[in-house]
């Protein structure tokens, strides 16, 4: 190629600023349809607010208003109670691309590239010609400042039209108002959808939204401690890219490459730095800012040749079991799910030098539609992913599992299963590997796929156990109906037809049931629980055994244990010694717990001295209650397979 022409091209390319580039390629950042642009604008603003609150340890309160100005023009206002932004920074944060305080810091955050909110300002400006209005108040100043600004796209610089102080009662916070073209919708992939999912993973936030039809929705916080932001760490050599090394080298204050390596990267000791420099053949005395591209490439190669400790996990902040459960209950509670899995938070792991962790929560049953594909809620660093579900690693991990093994319907054992279930998957990482700049789908990195798979399976096993227990219960209630309603009628009818007295069917009943039935009934008043345990011998023999009540919550009132039984203070359980319980005899046992927390969690009953296969409602001692024993109960309940018993 003619060198003059290529020089010229390179020069011109430099002049195209990122802002200009965006103007021509809106879809790259996700502004590719009118519908989506509104959602993206809300998302960028809310993500920023949540990040800022986290950093300042403030419980977020975010209000969103959407107003319709014209046919397809809307005014969006997002207001938070975050720390606010100091006056001189406001124009840069909102009016300049790639302006962000933490561009080189490595830690998990919602907005990872600092490109988001200025993109919203720019999108508004190019679709409506109107500037953005920003109000900011920081706690250390008495007044706030408001700005009208737009972006000079050629120079990637903010242009301030108006800058004025204003009085406010608010302690601190930011409010952004933009006019933009869009199309407001509800349902899938809408603002509402995004906010609902955001509320699930941010149970510490209160979020309100009023849409252009006047419809209001509010997600109230259910967790009253601010989330602490994850720690910042230096980049790990395995995960850092050549361009990043170059940038860090330009900005560093270290004068020598050896100290630059130990000071700017994590897990590099001075001994390790020497080894790296030896492998790459770079003089340890060299000044980092003078490194050539060639040298940086060699440095990167050397990074991968040395054995380093994996990156620190302190830079990750998983949501955690408690908050996932609270979030799911808060937002999905209306569906009255019959089962919430204990959320799974996997131990942190690493892909190409980047730490990550995977979390999964499942809800099942209730009013969740059972004939539709399972709903998958995807999150990356606490941000809902609404688009490109099909090409996302999190979706694929769900599709790769044979859910039939866990009691769901799935055609051919792969693909999205069908059933009354919602799956929440969260990937937290210092660097989420998105498939594109729009940050909509996660790339299929083998290490991540494996962790998601394990987390899903761990959760799925809970579903299976739940379903098996439910099946046992159903089968049992069927059996009770059989022996209590159908069998007496058969006896009565046959006696009538044959002109005989009605036979005693007790022996038949015990033969059909053949279980010892233990059932708990609980009456909770304030912080007290009255518990009635009934034990019925549905077998044909007298039974002797020991029954233990191992309560997890509150304290037992020893005098409430009736009509007999003992409180074992040392082991903190109640034990009943039952002797010669006759067939079809029922025994009622009572006790009371005080000082229980809001929701009584079931007491576990253990039984000793009897074949556990014939017991329903208590686990064999010492608590080895697993799926296998549940399965044997199902077989027992279903009856022996004669092979030719009619189906």
């Amino acid at each position, binding site marked *: 190629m003619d060198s003059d022409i290529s020089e010229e091209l390179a020069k011109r390319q430099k002049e195209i600023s990122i802002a200009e580039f965006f103007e021509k390629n809106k879809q790259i950042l996700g502004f590719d349809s009118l519908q989506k642009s509104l959602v993206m604008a809300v998302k960028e603003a809310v993500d920023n607010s949540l990040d800022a609150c986290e950093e300042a340890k403030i419980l977020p309160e975010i209000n969103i208003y959407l107003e319709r100005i014209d046919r397809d023009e809307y005014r969006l206002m997002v207001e938070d109670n975050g720390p606010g932004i100091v006056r001189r920074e406001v124009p840069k944060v909102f009016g300049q691309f790639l302006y962000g305080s933490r561009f080189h810091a490595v830690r998990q955050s919602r907005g990872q590239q600092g490109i988001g909110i200025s993109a919203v300002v720019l999108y508004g400006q190019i679709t409506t010609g109107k500037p953005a209005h920003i109000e900011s108040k920081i706690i250390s100043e008495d007044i706030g400042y408001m700005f009208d600004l737009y972006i000079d796209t050629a120079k990637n610089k903010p242009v301030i039209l108006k800058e004025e102080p204003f009085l406010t009662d608010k302690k601190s916070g930011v409010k952004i108002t933009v006019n933009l073209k869009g199309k407001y919708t509800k349902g899938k992939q809408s603002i509402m959808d995004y906010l609902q999912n955001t509320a699930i993973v941010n149970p510490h936030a209160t979020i309100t939204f009023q849409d252009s039809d006047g419809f209001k929705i509010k997600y109230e916080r259910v967790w009253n401690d601010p989330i602490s932001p994850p720690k910042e760490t230096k980049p790990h050599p395995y995960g850092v890219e050549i361009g990043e090394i170059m940038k860090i080298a330009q900005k560093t204050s270290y004068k020598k490459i050896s100290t630059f390596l130990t000071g700017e990267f994590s897990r590099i000791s001075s001994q390790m730095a020497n080894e790296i420099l030896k492998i790459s053949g770079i003089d340890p005395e060299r000044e980092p800012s003078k490194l050539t591209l060639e040298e940086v490439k060699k440095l990167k190669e050397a990074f991968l040749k040395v054995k380093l400790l994996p990156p620190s996990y302190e830079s990750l902040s998983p949501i955690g079991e408690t908050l996932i459960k609270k979030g799911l209950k808060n937002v999905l509670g209306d569906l009255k799910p019959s089962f919430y899995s204990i959320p799974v938070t996997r131990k942190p792991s690493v892909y190409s030098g980047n730490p990550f962790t995977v979390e999964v929560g499942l809800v099942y049953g209730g009013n969740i539609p059972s004939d539709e594909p399972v709903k998958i809620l995807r999150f990356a660093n606490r941000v809902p992913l609404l688009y490109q579900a099909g090409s996302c690693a999190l979706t694929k991990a769900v599709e790769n599992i044979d859910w039939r093994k866990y009691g769901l319907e799935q055609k051919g054992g792969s693909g999205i299963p069908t059933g009354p279930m919602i799956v929440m998957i969260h990937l937290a990482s210092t660097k989420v590997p998105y498939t594109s700049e729009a940050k909509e789908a996660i790339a299929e990195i083998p290490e991540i796929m494996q962790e998601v798979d394990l987390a899903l399976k761990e959760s799925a096993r809970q579903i299976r156990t739940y379903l098996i227990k439910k099946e046992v219960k159903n089968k049992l209630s*069927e*059996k009770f*109906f*059989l022996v209590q*309603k*159908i*069998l007496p*009628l*058969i*006896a009565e*009818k*046959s*006696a*009538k*037809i*044959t002109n*005989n007295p009605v*036979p005693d*069917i007790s*022996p*038949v009943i015990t*033969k*059909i049931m053949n279980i010892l039935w233990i059932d708990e009934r609980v009456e909770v008043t304030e912080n007290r629980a009255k518990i009635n345990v009934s034990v019925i011998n549905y077998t044909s023999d007298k039974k002797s055994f020991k029954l233990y009540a191992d309560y997890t919550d509150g304290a037992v009132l020893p005098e409430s244990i009736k009509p007999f039984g003992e409180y074992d203070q040392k082991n903190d359980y109640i034990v009943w010694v039952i002797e010669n319980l006759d067939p079809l005899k029922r025994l009622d046992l009572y006790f009371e717990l005080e000082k229980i927390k809001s929701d009584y969690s079931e007491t576990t009953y253990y039984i000793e001295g009897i074949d556990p296969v014939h017991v329903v409602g208590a686990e064999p001692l010492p608590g080895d209650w697993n799926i296998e024993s549940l399965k044997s109960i199902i077989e027992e309940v*279903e*009856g022996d397979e*004669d092979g*030719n*018993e*009619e*189906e």
Partner: protein
Amino acid sequence: METKRSEEVLNELKKIVEKIYDQMKKGEIPYMELPARNKYNIKLDVTKGVWKYGDDKIYRSAKKIEGAYTLLRTMFMLDFIKEMIEQNKSSTLRELYYISESWGIAKFHTQDESDKLAEDIEILTKYLREDFKLRPEENGATIIGNITIEEINRKGKPQRINCRDDVGDSGYPVPYNVEKEKINIIDYDADFVLAIETGGMFDRLVENGYDEKARAVLVHLKGQPARSTRRLLKRFNEELGLPVLVFTDGDPWSFRIYASIAYGAIKTAHISEYLATPTAEFIGVTASDILNYDLPTDKLNDKDIKALYAELNDPRFKTPFWKNEIELMLKIGKKAEQQALAKYGLNYVTDVYLPEKISEMGLK
């Protein structure tokens, strides 16, 4: 007014109930034993040439909820039958199904359930459901041909009907009871009986005067033939020595119509020797006909294909003829209606197809 037969029936019914009662009295889980009513448990009775249930048994036990329900329903149904016999009443199978509405948890959810249980009781007692005062409301077949029968009419008087001269275009309707007490065959002048599946083809043959031209008794089966239709075909065959030829569509379901006439249906294998005509022959439409006569066709759907494969496993179809035809149909993947013969004109079926097929069989 209990006749001797009624008394015997009552006794048999009572025996079933006594068994259940005794089991419970002994503290056993009550159960009933029945032949397995599926295609794997039908055996050829060589002396009679019909297919009957084999020795495989099923146990309907009250240990499982479905079994318990069926036992309970059996008690209710037997009680109801006993009442009808004692009061000299009868009901249709449909009425029985509705009667069960008042049985509480024992009520039937579909008429299939009650029909099947009535058949179970036939099997257990070796009596027919007519003995239990249960009759089908099903529409029997119609007949056109030179055959004279004498039917005891509603007023209890014998009435002679010639099925060619004394009937309209739709022919003589076969009542649900075709036993000698109801119908006697007086006279006939025909060479064979032609049993036809569809109304369209029946009407075509009637319009073309085929009954007179070919000296045939035409019987419209109306799809899967009712018990009375099959019984009457058997009587024509046995009492008059008339060959029975079956003419249906060319698809797996029509093959089953033929099988139920010739070999006995799986559902009623307990009364096969009473219903089946082992010498009945299949005229068509065969898969070979589809090729030989180049008939307009439809593609086999998934259900058709499944049915054909099921027939390959059905002992009744284990003859070289059927094996060839079923495999050929699967190979060409096509089926044809009998009326597809109209491709060659309205007279083709009576002028060409039937005469050709019948002479192929060596009948004429």
